[in-house]
């Protein structure tokens, strides 16, 4: 990282040191041109950015030249040429966070850290602030990540609080850590989700509280980190399993409730301690009101009642089987529960039989396009080439989607099993897990899982039919949405910019390094073991005739219970929103459901009774995508949503073809005009024409689907566009068109004046204040502060 501890004085020595450290990295990673991305990642990992001297060293000693390095380093979002501050604050701008006000959170951080217009780092070099496409914790939106800590529900007013919490935690981390106690006979098990969402809601504190309480009370329980439960909106959540097999679930847990729960379920080791702690607890409870709303005394129904329909709505689990139960990295447990049985069977079967099985199951690719997976397998298997590749596509970059992340983090063994089956079936000797680098936890877990599999000899086993062994490696994507497109993904593995190439030829014919390559999405592969184990017919019986099996969705937005869900294909959106999601948050009206992220569209409430499958979604002008479902309410502006996605694609377009590079930018220009009240009716027609042309003439899938958010909202919500062209944003989402005003309901409590960070609200006790619109930054803090809802957005015109 920085050179604080080094004794380097002269610039020459510093340069020399950079060169030496770079040499070591080059030695480790390699000198070929296709090593560039791992090499740059290693350099950035070492120096926190890409120093010019390190790059010079790369030109000098590897096959990578200047042109390639500039081209690659500036293409991928991960790389930076300038050093960042010691801590990086990443404000998630995923769809769910966006509709919940991520931009104002970003502004609030900048304001809090007194940052001026175009800097990214504070003047003292302590913090850098950046926006990030999606952290994948959509159920806790708005989400902010500071270094490796994630904070959920960060409202603009909580910014200082979050920073303090972070600093405090940093302080504690520096203090000495406790040594682990020797293990004793456990009295039971506490299962705790440790995924991003859970961490964002404070699981780490719960874990600490459990450990502390156990120490104090002398209770010995196994604390087991488990795979994602899926109920991301109801975390922290623990399951207490007692030796008699009884499981009690506690959602929405607070750290101070832990002790009591432990006391309730387990007996402290010594009677003296028991007595002491009971006495202490009674005294504690006397002094507080906790007794009355004590979590232990809540009836089961009230405590977990809201969760039950969430789980009841998901009867069949395939990709997420073992949710909330399995330790993601406990290979014995996985094998015990039937893991790797499918692989074992495949190894003793003719590959064609396996492919036939997959074909017959009717499974379609979960990555977005919905191409029949079996046909892809067949194409690769039939290709006449000694060298073939299988790639697991985990470059999930859609804002508002986190299925792949959770599957990789919680069920890495299942994904690896699916990958190995695919490799054996098509005769590939090399398999690559492509995981985006923004998911560090996923990379760590998959790497660990792969190690475990290797130790068990599961990876390098040859099949009985063919004697070749499979070599599995991990490739970290470097932050480019377009690399989810398979030809662009291949380009990035080959060490080039993520430019997609024209298909045909398809990767199945001519893919990685010119060899036939099978590329399947994480979720597709994670369904394969189930198909092999339970048979194609059983799988095909789930879902609809042309879309079989189950689909994992990331449910987020204005819904009561967001989270990761797995439902059979053909479930209606209404079911998902009402039953699993528990209806709309705050009882507002459902307006639309956005599916498929930036490549998808918005399905209006009146069409939400349609079953969710590939074909039905396509007929509604959207796509399944990788499975993000963002629920939009009557408070959401559809022009703003379309603009959000178009802006996202505009930033993520690779820039290769005219229609995507310039066309999407021009769409954004028009949407910007509409969203700032400068648009005209003519703009709407122009936008529509442009959108249609882009979808017909772009080179790759990203460009062709980029206009979907615009086309679908134009189709179902054209009147909103027209209102914008007339200068009105009915929901107040388009900030340039509205101002904040105080209504007659105001009693002059001055709460708004107290919270306003921009001094736009005068301090006028007992009088209705008038907001100074020239100063107001529309951060919305006063809206939150007002108890009487006496402040609201009004249109400028």
């Amino acid at each position, binding site marked *: 990282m920085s050179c604080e501890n080094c004794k380097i004085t002269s610039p020459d020595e510093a340069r020399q040191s950079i060169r030496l450290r770079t040499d070591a990295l080059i030695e480790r990673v390699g000198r070929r041109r296709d090593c560039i991305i791992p090499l740059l990642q290693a350099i950035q990992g070492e120096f926190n950015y890409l120093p*010019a001297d390190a790059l010079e060293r790369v030109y000098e000693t590897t096959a990578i*030249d*200047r*042109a*390639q390095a*500039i*081209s690659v*380093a*500036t*293409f991928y979002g991960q790389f930076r*040429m300038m050093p960042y501050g010691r801590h990086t604050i990443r404000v998630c701008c995923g769809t769910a966070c966006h509709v919940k006000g991520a931009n104002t959170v970003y502004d609030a951080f900048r304001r809090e850290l007194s940052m001026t217009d175009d800097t990214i780092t504070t003047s003292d070099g302590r913090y850098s602030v950046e926006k990030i496409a999606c952290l994948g914790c959509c159920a806790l939106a708005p989400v902010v990540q500071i270094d490796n800590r994630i904070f959920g529900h960060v409202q603009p007013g909580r910014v200082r609080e979050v920073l303090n919490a972070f600093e405090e935690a940093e302080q504690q981390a520096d203090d000495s850590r406790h040594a682990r106690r020797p293990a004793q006979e456990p009295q039971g098990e506490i299962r705790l989700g440790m995924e991003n969402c859970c961490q964002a809601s404070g699981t780490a504190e719960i874990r600490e509280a459990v450990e502390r309480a156990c120490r104090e009370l002398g209770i010995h329980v196994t604390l087991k980190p488990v795979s994602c439960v899926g109920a991301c909106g109801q975390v922290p959540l623990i399951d207490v399993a007692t030796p008699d097999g009884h499981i009690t679930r506690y959602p929405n847990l607070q750290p101070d409730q832990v002790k009591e729960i432990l006391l309730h379920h387990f007996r402290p080791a010594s009677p003296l301690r028991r007595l002491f702690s009971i006495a202490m607890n009674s005294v504690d409870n006397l002094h507080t009101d906790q007794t009355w709303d004590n979590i232990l005394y809540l009836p089961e129904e009230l405590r977990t009642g809201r969760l039950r329909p969430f789980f009841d709505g998901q009867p069949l689990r395939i990709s997420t089987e073992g949710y909330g139960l399995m330790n993601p990295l406990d290979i014995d447990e996985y094998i015990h529960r039937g893991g790797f049985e499918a692989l074992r069977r495949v190894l003793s079967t003719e590959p064609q039989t396996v492919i036939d099985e997959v074909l017959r199951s009717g499974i379609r690719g979960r990555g977005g396009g919905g191409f029949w997976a079996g046909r892809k397998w067949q194409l690769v298997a039939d290709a006449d080439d000694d060298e073939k590749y299988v790639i697991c596509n985990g470059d999930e970059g859609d804002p508002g989607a986190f299925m792949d992340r959770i599957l990789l983090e919680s069920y890495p063994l299942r994904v690896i099993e699916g990958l190995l089956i695919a490799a054996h079936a098509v005769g590939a000797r090399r398999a690559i897990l492509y995981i985006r680098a923004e998911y560090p936890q996923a990379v760590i877990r998959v790497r660990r899982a792969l190690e475990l599999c290797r130790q068990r000899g599961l990876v390098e086993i040859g099949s009985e039919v063919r004697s070749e062994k499979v070599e599995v490696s991990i490739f970290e994507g470097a932050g*480019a949405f*377009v690399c989810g497109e398979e030809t662009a993904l291949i380009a990035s593995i080959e060490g080039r*910019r*993520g*430019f997609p*190439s*024209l298909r*045909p030829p398809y990767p199945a014919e001519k893919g990685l390094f010119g060899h036939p390559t099978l590329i399947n999405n994480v979720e597709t592969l994670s369904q394969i073991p189930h198909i092999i184990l339970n048979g194609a017919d059983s799988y095909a019986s789930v879902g609809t005739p042309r879309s079989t099996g189950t689909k994992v969705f990331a449910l987020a937005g204005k819904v009561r219970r967001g989270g990761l869900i797995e439902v059979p294909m053909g479930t209606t959106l209404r079911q998902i929103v009402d039953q699993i999601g528990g209806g709309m948050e705050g009882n507002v009206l459902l307006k639309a459901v956005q599916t498929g992220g930036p490549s998808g569209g918005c399905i209006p409430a009146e069409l939400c009774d349609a079953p969710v499958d590939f074909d039905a979604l396509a007929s509604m002008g959207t796509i399944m995508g990788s499975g993000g479902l963002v629920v939009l309410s009557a408070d959401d502006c559809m022009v703003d949503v379309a603009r959000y996605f178009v802006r996202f694609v*505009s*930033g*993520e*377009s*690779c*820039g*290769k*073809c*005219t*229609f995507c*590079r*310039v*066309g*999407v*930018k*021009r769409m954004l*220009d028009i949407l910007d005009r509409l969203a700032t009240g400068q648009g005209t009716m003519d703009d709407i027609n*122009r936008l529509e024409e*442009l959108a249609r*042309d882009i979808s*017909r*003439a772009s*080179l790759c899938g990203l460009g*062709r689907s980029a206009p979907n958010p615009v086309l679908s909202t134009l189709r179902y919500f054209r009147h909103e566009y027209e209102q914008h062209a007339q200068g009105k944003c009915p929901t107040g989402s388009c900030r340039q068109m509205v101002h904040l005003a105080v209504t007659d309901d105001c009693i002059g409590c001055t709460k708004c004046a107290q919270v306003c960070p921009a001094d736009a609200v005068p301090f006028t006790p007992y009088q209705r204040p008038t907001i100074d619109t020239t100063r107001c930054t529309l951060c919305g803090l006063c809206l939150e502060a007002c108890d009487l809802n006496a402040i609201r957005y009004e249109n400028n015109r």
Partner: protein
Amino acid sequence: MKITVNQQPLDVSPHRPLIESLRAAGYDIPSMCYASDRRHQPSCMVCMVKDVHTGQMIPSCSTLPREGMEIEADTEEVLGMRRQALELLLSDHRADCEAPCTIVCPQSIDVARVLLHYDRGELSAAAAELGDKSCDGCKAPCERACRRRTVDAAVSIRSLLDEVRREGQQVSRSTSQQDNRSTSHQDSLSQRVDLLTCGPVDLFNSRLGRFTDAEKERMKQLYTQPSRCLHCACEGNEKCRLRELATKAGIRMPKYGVQSSLPVKERIKVTERLVYEPAKCIRCGLCVYNTDDGFTFERRGFDMRVVIPEESKSHVGDEVARLCPTGALHLRVLTLLLPLLMLFSGCGQGGQNSSKRENSNMGTHEWTSFRGGTSLAGYTSNPLPDSPRLLWEYRHGVRTVAAPIVSQGTVYMCDKHGQLRGFSIADGTPTYSLDLGGDVEAPFVTADTLLYIGQMDGQVRALSLTDGAELWHFETEGQILASPTLLPRGVLVVGSYDNTMYTLDSRTGNAVGRASTGYYINGAAAIWRDTFALFGGCDAWLRVSDLRTGLVTDSIRLDAYLPASPALEGDFAYVNDYQGNLYEIRFTKDGHIGGHRKMLAAEGDEGGTTSMPAVTADAVFVLAEGRFLVCIDRADAHVRWKQMLRGDVGECSPLVCADRVLVCTRTGIISIHDVRTGRCLWTYETGEQIVASPAVAAGKIFVLTARGTLLCFS
């Protein structure tokens, strides 16, 4: 293989891209990013055809036919989509095809071209371009359309044209016999003009749009040549396929306006002839795919751009200009030569931050001629180090009189036997060595990687510093003792002991003109307004020659002969004669000598000096009376102060660096004085004679003694 095109069957080769087969079958398929024999990737989408089965538009340049394929090659729908592609490309193409002044001229005068010739100093060509077209009674819409108007004030086109008419007639009368080349040139020009103005095609004109405030500031700084013209017209507009296709598609005004992420009018010099203008680039990538470690893409999406890193420029050849489908990459043509001054390098803010640094400090890092500039004023804003200390020294031990030169981090010295050496300015490590194969006493000049030097054997040579190869040489008939003067736009002026001041084309070494004088020429020429050279001679005449013709246009005889060079500041020149008199000469607007006066009269016999003065905005600094540094007020010629130096003065002239004066005496003592008081602030004894002028660059002082010791102070 059989496919269907516009519902007609067509037999095609399965291995040729569709575009080739379609073109062979007579379909007119336009393209921009495709070159049949070169590497390419589909990007522009101008060549698209419709795949009837899928309804998608596919780029025919990169699609191989498939059995049973059905396409539409030129239906209304396809043409509309192609037009849309062009519209999108044009909306990101911020440039003028033709200059607005030319477009609006009711007399169809190619105003832009006239101004271009004017700025190049080619008045006869400018006059020819103008012909007998009159501006009488015209309300000068050209000035209203002038882009410069939005920056500060419009170019005074009317009066410039009048000037061209007047002067052009004079010049053409006096030179019409001599310069055949320019006459034939005029013929070809007038033909072209005829084609342009009388041709039936109404060409599409791309528009630059409005300047932002930052751009206006930059324009002001960059375009300071006499006419102030921004030279809006595109140099590559003749080969531009974007313009051609837009014209064919009937586009008049770009539908989506013009809004680019690229800096407007940025001109990057890639090779001596190849110029890259990013704002015109359509990112087709032909130059990227067809150079090896040369051009490359930077960033992505709408912000994606093509850049050429400074270090990679040498990997690029001129032929890449032919590949570029727009005027973004073009070769500078002699007739359409813009001053090189305007070419500034820089490849964006992203990848290489070094370029930015070079831009801002360009002046302070380079010292490419013995007085640091073509005016020979001996003034630089480069500050001297506060308390200089010796950083490094190099003892060569061979007599050296030519002044040191600093270019791109290297300081060059050339000893009397023609051994050229280069040292890293940072630590004095020898980094360069070249044997010129002839004795050298004259200072030399550099421009980029080229070196121009005059030798004792009378040869003027242009050498590449990278490989020592000789680009050209030119023979004079006497020894050369003075530095050549290099004008940025490609003119080299050098005087010889064959009594002639030569004006050479710095690219070819051809003599553009020769000005004969009565005796040896000992000093270098100072350049006034890029057009006139001022030089003295051993016949006591100070002469002015017109660089466009090389002929002497005016002269004045002074009291004694003039071994040193004159120094210019504004319209005034200052020169010492051998007796020690200092003269001020005033130029009139048209380059004639308007008058002169004596600023300092010699007293006694020992005043003789071979050094030259240094000039600032308000004062002249001169070595006088054997051992004095004198500061004279330019307004009323009174002596502000007079400071006695340690040791005798010699050939080495004073140098003003911001608020300090740097002086080296023949006795070998270096001293620094305050500009206002003359007080001595610092001295250093080298113990060796100093003849050569010092160089000041990158915050360092470089002094070369006659024994070949190079000292670097910082």
